[in-house]
């Protein structure tokens, strides 16, 4: 019973935050307050007719399109909202990692299944980008888990009672934020859906499919931001307010930062991003893990 309620609360919170992110994004893009734009766009997509390409692989497209929001929501299941998560798994950090690599599958499947060039190019681009961001991302998660001595997200939160991990693991936190942008193919890492390939992966999606894809992308960005809170920003800890409201405040802050950064930073080609991650971020985050290991010992 309690879990059902928690799951409903989680879904509602993700929906509201993702819609908020979309509204903020639209406002930044338009240069004015455009809170209604995403809702209008959603309504328009709901009544738009599906466009069909020649010989699409319909089952794979369905798996890909519905998979994107699904993995985002499943990844969020281990994140505590206030005190408790929907599923407080003993290896929650690994679960989070396992679900978010599902994005690779979703994007490549969409790119492949519509049988069109630009989406396929976008899908391949995301795989290349995935190879770049995944290792630093994993090491960033590991440094938080190492600092807590546990893979349970609740233990990671508990370990930050004295000092937030973001403060004494700044490198891991920075790497996590960069990989969060890459994971949600957002801002500087948006080559998979870049304008130079006519919108990339979702180029041939129309109607409700496109709506689900866009909703999935904003949900993914929301979940990536929400995960930074228990892993690096002390979870629900904070003065005066109850834990759930601190979790919410911090999530909104990280989410706003990521959305804003997406509008301020230029796109990086994924081969250059690859060089940067493997030559700079991986050594940096490995050194961070060494430091964390010494401190923990």
């Amino acid at each position: 019973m309690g879990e059902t309620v928690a799951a409903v609360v989680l879904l509602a919170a993700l929906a509201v935050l993702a819609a908020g992110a979309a509204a903020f994004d639209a406002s930044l893009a338009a240069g004015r307050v455009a809170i209604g734009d995403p809702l209008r766009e959603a309504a328009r997509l709901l009544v738009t007719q599906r466009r069909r390409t020649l010989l699409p692989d319909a089952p794979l497209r369905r798996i890909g399109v519905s998979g994107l929001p699904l993995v985002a929501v499943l990844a969020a299941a281990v994140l505590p909202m206030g005190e408790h998560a929907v599923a407080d798994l003993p290896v929650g950090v690994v679960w989070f990692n396992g679900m978010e690599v599902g994005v690779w599958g979703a994007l490549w499947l969409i790119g492949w299944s519509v049988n069109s060039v630009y989406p396929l190019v976008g899908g391949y681009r995301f795989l290349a980008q995935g190879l770049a961001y995944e290792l630093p991302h994993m090491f960033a998660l590991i440094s938080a888990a190492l600092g807590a001595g546990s893979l349970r997200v609740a233990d990671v939160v508990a370990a930050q009672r004295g000092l937030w991990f973001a403060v004494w693991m700044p490198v891991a936190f920075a790497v996590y934020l960069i990989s969060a942008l890459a994971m949600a193919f957002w801002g500087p890492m948006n080559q998979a859906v870049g304008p130079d390939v006519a919108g990339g992966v979702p180029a041939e999606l129309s109607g409700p499919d496109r709506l689900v894809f866009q909703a999935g992308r904003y949900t993914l960005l929301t979940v990536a931001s929400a995960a930074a809170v228990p892993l690096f920003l002390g979870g629900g800890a904070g003065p005066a307010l109850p834990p759930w409201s601190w979790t919410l405040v911090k999530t909104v802050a990280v989410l706003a930062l990521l959305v804003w950064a997406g509008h301020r930073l230029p796109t990086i080609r994924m081969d250059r991003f690859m060089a940067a991650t493997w030559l700079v971020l991986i050594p940096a985050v490995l050194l961070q893990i060494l430091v964390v290991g010494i401190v923990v010992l």
Partner: protein
Amino acid sequence: MTAQVVAFWTLAAVAVASGVAVFVTGSMARATFALLASLLAAGLTFLLIDLQYLSFLIIVMMVMEMLIMAVYMVMYMMNPAGLMPMTMVHNRRGAVLIASAVFVLLAVGVLLTPWPARRGAPPPDPTRQLGLSVMGPRMLVMIVIGVAILATMVAAIVLATDRGRYDRSGDEHDRWGRAT
């Protein structure tokens, strides 16, 4: 207990059925994702025997592995989307016979062998047991794996690349691919 039995046999059926589907479907994308489904279903059975960490580890590794595999499958198949009917097998009957014989042999062995009774009980936290083991008595295994990974990375790149270190991005380009 019954819920576990149902879950196990459902996952087992999915694992074997999608394993068979890999060699039935003509589309390489479908074959790769069928294999992924088989690997994930097999990995999820580990949740029934307390191996949460390994189960999720299998999910992480296999999703990434199969997606990279998909790239090569599409690259090296004549008919990656399976849109033209063609056969890519040889000696199908012999293969079916040998595979069936292998299965019958293994199954008979599985059912007839008097398996030893369980010694001891699973620890409360198998992940901790695994971690302590690979950082303690079984550390040599991890060291060997580490060297094998490094050797594979070097060997695979040497085999696959057609360029040396001085022409990474072709003539007239620096090492970052910028025109000079």
